[in-house]
């Protein structure tokens, strides 16, 4: 039945039900998606929420939205992000402040806060091969309930999973969804169309498709029509709220320069 259907459930995640007058602030512009800033856009992001965050290491992370989570102090978050921050920055700040209960990620080298909390039993962790991580998010957003992939067969990543032989053995992996997705793009418009700079794109367009509410922050909010229609990396249909951020640090872990 198409009137209301749930998409694939995330572990611990849920596709929200329509809620009327539930306190979410209204945006402005023809699509009511443009918000003043992080405080307004994230006002209803509650403790216990399942939150996806774009970024590879510190590249392309939603800096302003993360700062707002830190400021508001929402707790018991489930974070779905490739690295959960790096070198104490990005989402790693939420680890330090004890706001994270569970993390789903792929690579956490260079994240001593996560390591310490994990070994201390302060948070639980699901490590997912990076390609499977990306594909599960894409599936969650695309209404694909599950898929068979050869990645991880014969490793700990296969533990507890159905194995099925095609041309080679494959694991059954399920779609992944979240309550909120926080993404950052270089440019965006009032409909939520997004354009990412260089390799800052990574997981963000996928995560935008897989959350009940996707909140995009952009360095430049541009007029409708300013982004070439062929070159929009994430169509606004996937974005519910957008705001222009500021004071971007755009940190780079290893700024190695050419030898002279």
């Amino acid at each position, binding site marked *: *039945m*198409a*009137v*209301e*259907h749930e*998409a694939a459930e995330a572990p611990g995640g849920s*596709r*929200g*039900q*329509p*809620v*009327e*007058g*539930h306190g*979410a*602030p*209204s*945006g402005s512009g*023809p*699509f*009511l*998606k443009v*918000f003043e800033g992080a405080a307004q856009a994230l006002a*209803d992001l509650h403790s216990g929420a399942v939150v996806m965050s774009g970024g590879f290491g510190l590249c392309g992370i939603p800096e302003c939205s993360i700062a707002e989570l830190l400021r508001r102090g929402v707790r018991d978050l489930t974070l779905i992000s490739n690295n959960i921050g790096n070198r104490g920055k990005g989402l790693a700040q939420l680890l330090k402040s004890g706001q994270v209960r569970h993390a789903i990620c792929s690579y956490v080298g260079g994240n001593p806060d996560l390591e310490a909390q994990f070994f201390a039993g302060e948070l639980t962790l699901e490590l997912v091969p990076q390609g499977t991580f990306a594909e599960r998010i*894409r599936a*969650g*957003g*695309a*209404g*694909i309930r599950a898929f068979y992939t050869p990645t991880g067969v014969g490793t700990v990543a296969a533990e507890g999973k159905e194995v099925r032989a095609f041309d080679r053995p494959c694991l059954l992996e399920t779609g992944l969804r979240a*309550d909120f997705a926080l993404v950052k793009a270089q440019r965006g*418009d*009032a*409909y939520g*169309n997004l354009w990412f700079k260089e390799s800052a794109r990574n997981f963000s367009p996928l995560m935008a*498709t*897989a959350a*009940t*509410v996707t909140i995009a922050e952009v360095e430049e909010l541009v*007029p*409708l*029509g300013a982004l070439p*229609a*062929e070159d*929009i990396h994430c*169509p*606004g*249909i*996937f974005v*519910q*709220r957008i705001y222009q951020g500021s004071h971007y640090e755009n940190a780079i872990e290893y700024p190695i320069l050419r030898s002279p």
Partner: protein
Amino acid sequence: MARPSATALAGETLTLAHTPSREAVAVTRPPSSGTQALLRGWSDAALAAEVARAIPPRSVVNLGIGLPTQVAQYLDPAASIMIHSENGLLGVEGRPTEATLSPTRINAGKESVDVRPGAAYFDSALSFAMIRGGHVNLAILGGMQVDVQGSLANWSVPGRKLTGMGGAMDLVTGARAVWVMMRHADRSGASKLLERCTLPLTGAGVVARIITELGWFRPTGTHFEVISLAPGVTLSDVGDPALFRTDRVFENASRATQRADEP
């Protein structure tokens, strides 16, 4: 869905946003032949305008080939409705001029279109990710048959014609609401709203609303609720009184259909 807008999008709180005038429903049931009924009700243009008015602001809508495509030209620009075309285009708006005609800018009916600022082009995988993933609020499709279970047949007449389902099966599965917009009867005069579809299904239990030139209807699981009738149309015009009712008590409605009824 926790959206910022206080106004619902199609597929979220359908019954709030869809407000056809109920007073048009006749209380008397004068006898009337089926043939007469075919001549009554909305013209195609009036039908398209009626549907356009019923679409909640800011919805993403996919319009099927044929009658539904005509809805586009009656949309209120202020409603900021985005038209999705499954060939890989979001933001269809109107027709090109001779000067702006482009063979690469077409809708799913393979007709030339224009786009509005904020439109985007994408590949077919992403286009159907939008549909299957529940990102399209409303699909308005043509129909050959719809039944009281909300099942739709609109793609195949076995042995007679070969067309293929195209994107229709994906749309009825993935769009958050499905409306069927069609003539009330086929060329032979037989009603296309049936107790049970006889043609191959596009989807089972998928239709939330049906609009024909005679009025708005809702499959309840046991019959069609008559939500409203076109001016001059009476309840007896629409068909068998056992199949078309105005009450809102649905004893045997399926769970899915009941949910469509929840405000």
